[in-house]
């Protein structure tokens, strides 16, 4: 509210200056005002999504798979939260839980809250949920070929979403679909709209998916490995596209990936996941300059980098534990070179170690 009042006050000042016939000054004030509005936006950043103690289990023949086991994080308006981890760490199940896309049985959200703009999504009925999904929260998946329906044209699939959520006619929806395709950089959208997914290349399909996801101007976009199946030059195009679209709106993004490079480029804040838990949670610069959890540190040193040369890569010994049988104590302790007796017995909590920098580790530092 203070922000709005402040801007009204600024407009008032400009008006008075206009009256005094000082156009140059007025122009200056307008730029000042836009700057000011940006500040207001930054200062009044609100929590858009809050995940609290989320536990999603799968009941399988081999036992209970604790894919997501006590995950907490927040996503603010207009920011990108990166979730990074290796396969099986629970990052995709987290995103599917937010969308309530966990098939039951075998899966079930056991515990926790998913507050989206103050509404707990875990408590919503399917009917209410469908009003949120695809409109306020949209998702793009890793493999655009398997997530687009091969029997319908791109246009039919995008307009379906628009018709469902917005009070517009068919003609208007088609227009909007074309506009969306243009926005995501698909050439000749009027023709492409009548094409089937198989007629598009991988990069174009992913663009079409993004167009579909953004067709109802969502407040939150969940991107689950959106570029993993693409070549690097196409990946660069898609990442740039997501960043550009984000700049134009106040959309929040959850970027799920295993690629630390993508995280460094896209995210404002990062949650590192391991064995169904968040093990480190920090602003992106903090995380890369000062990784504190031994797992994060290990990951960062295990990747070959273009701007650094080493003889041998650092390796994290062992393998990711199975979700049906996590080790007692700290789940990373069998692979951790710093582990001691406490790590074997007591399960660490996610504790704050610096401003906005949290880790789940008894040793509190890997140095």
């Amino acid at each position, binding site marked *: 509210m203070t922000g709005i009042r402040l801007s009204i006050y600024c407009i008032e000042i400009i008006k008075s200056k206009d009256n005094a016939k000082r156009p140059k000054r007025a122009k200056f004030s307008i730029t000042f005002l836009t700057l000011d509005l940006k500040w207001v936006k930054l200062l009044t950043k609100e929590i858009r999504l809050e995940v609290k103690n989320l536990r999603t289990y799968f009941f399988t023949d081999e036992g209970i798979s604790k894919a997501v086991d006590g995950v907490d994080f927040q996503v603010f308006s207009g920011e990108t939260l990166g979730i990074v981890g*290796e*396969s099986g760490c629970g990052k995709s199940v987290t995103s599917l839980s937010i969308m309530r896309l966990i098939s039951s049985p075998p899966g079930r959200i056991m515990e926790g809250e998913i507050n989206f703009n103050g509404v707990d999504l875990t408590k919503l009925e399917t009917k209410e949920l469908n009003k949120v999904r695809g409109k306020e929260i949209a998702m793009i998946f890793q493999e655009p070929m398997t997530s687009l329906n091969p029997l319908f044209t791109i246009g039919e699939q995008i307009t379906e979403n628009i018709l469902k959520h917005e009070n517009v006619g068919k003609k208007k929806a088609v227009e909007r679909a074309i506009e969306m395709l243009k926005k995501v950089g698909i050439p000749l959208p009027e023709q492409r709209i009548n094409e089937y997914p198989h007629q598009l*290349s991988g*990069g*174009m399909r992913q663009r079409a998916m993004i167009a579909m996801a953004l067709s109802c101007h969502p407040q939150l976009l969940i991107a689950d490995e959106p570029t993993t199946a693409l*070549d*690097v*030059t*196409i*990946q*660069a*195009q898609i*990442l*740039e596209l997501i960043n550009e679209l984000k700049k134009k709106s106040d959309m929040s993004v959850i970027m799920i990936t*295993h*690629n*630390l*490079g*993508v*995280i*460094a*480029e896209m995210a404002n804040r990062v949650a590192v996941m391991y064995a169904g838990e968040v093990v480190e949670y920090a602003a*992106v*610069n903090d995380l*890369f*300059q000062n990784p504190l959890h031994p797992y994060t540190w*290990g*990951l*960062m040193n*295990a*990747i*070959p*980098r*273009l*701007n650094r*040369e*080493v003889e*041998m*890569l*650092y*390796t*994290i010994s062992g*393998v*990711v534990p199975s979700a049906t049988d996590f080790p007692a104590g700290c789940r990373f302790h069998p692979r951790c070179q710093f582990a001691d007796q406490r790590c074997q017995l007591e399960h660490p909590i996610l504790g704050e170690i610096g401003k906005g920098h949290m880790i789940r580790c008894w040793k509190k530092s890997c140095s």
Partner: protein
Amino acid sequence: MMVIPDGALLQVEHLKKYFPIKAGLLKKTVGYIKAVDDVSFFVKEGETLGLVGESGCGKSTTGYSILRLEKATAGQVYFNGQEILSLNKKSMREMRKEIQIIFQDPYASLNPRMTVEEIVGEVLDAHRLVKKKEERRERVVELLNSVGLDKRYLQRFPHEFSGGQRQRIGIARALAVNPKMIIADEPVSALDVSVQAQVINLLRELQRKFGLTYIIIAHDLSVVKHISDRVAVMYLGKIVEMSDKRGLYARSLHPYTKALLSAIPIPDPTYKKERIILQGDVPSPANPPVGCRFYPRCQKANKICREVEPDLLEYEDQHYVACHLVS
């Protein structure tokens, strides 16, 4: 003309692989997909050549053609001075003891019905390298040890292993015949980051231990930079640039190489670099552009690029590039 230095173990000359496109009721050939189109390079003994490019550029087909897993359309491949592509079946079998391959997907390249002992032992039997069963087991254990697995695993089936362990089994199988050269087709791209590092280090260790020569086919330029001595960049069936690693990464000449390098996301949020975003997609290899194959996506292309196909020429010492605008 490429100058082949002494000590070249493998030499590939004008290799071509065209796949026919068949259509209609009679399956008439209506065109060709030129997966590999006139590729020449060499690999020196004991070195690692990285073959990089995006999907569909022909890097894997090049590897397969060398091993004759695909029948090359034209060209020659010399291994230690011996031409491979014209060998008869029996001599080729002998030749396969010298060159082995590791595949990308460790889930698909191991027979799920065979135990580890059978998978690795099969190679020994096929090449008649062991006589008795005990001798076979001994050798399999030795091979497993060299890739960091122990004999507990002998009787296990592939599904009992993680991706990284499976890739180790694949490597053990390749090592079984004591090859001089290993072609690794995307050896780590299916693996998780922490496991990827283990396999990369293993490949390097084995190279030192057994004096192996590698061709590493990969799309990840950071991995290739780490592991290779020299790198060849492919685009639409052609090598567009080839150089030792330092020259290629520090002083890339071809606009495609530059764009490819700039497109890699660097895991450092403070690292700022100029990014060249390529427009459009890779054209279809069934109908590649006339002239330079990269010109439709090249920002600097001019008239000559649209008309004349550039040759792979030596720009500096052992730094080859196929571009009209570099010279």
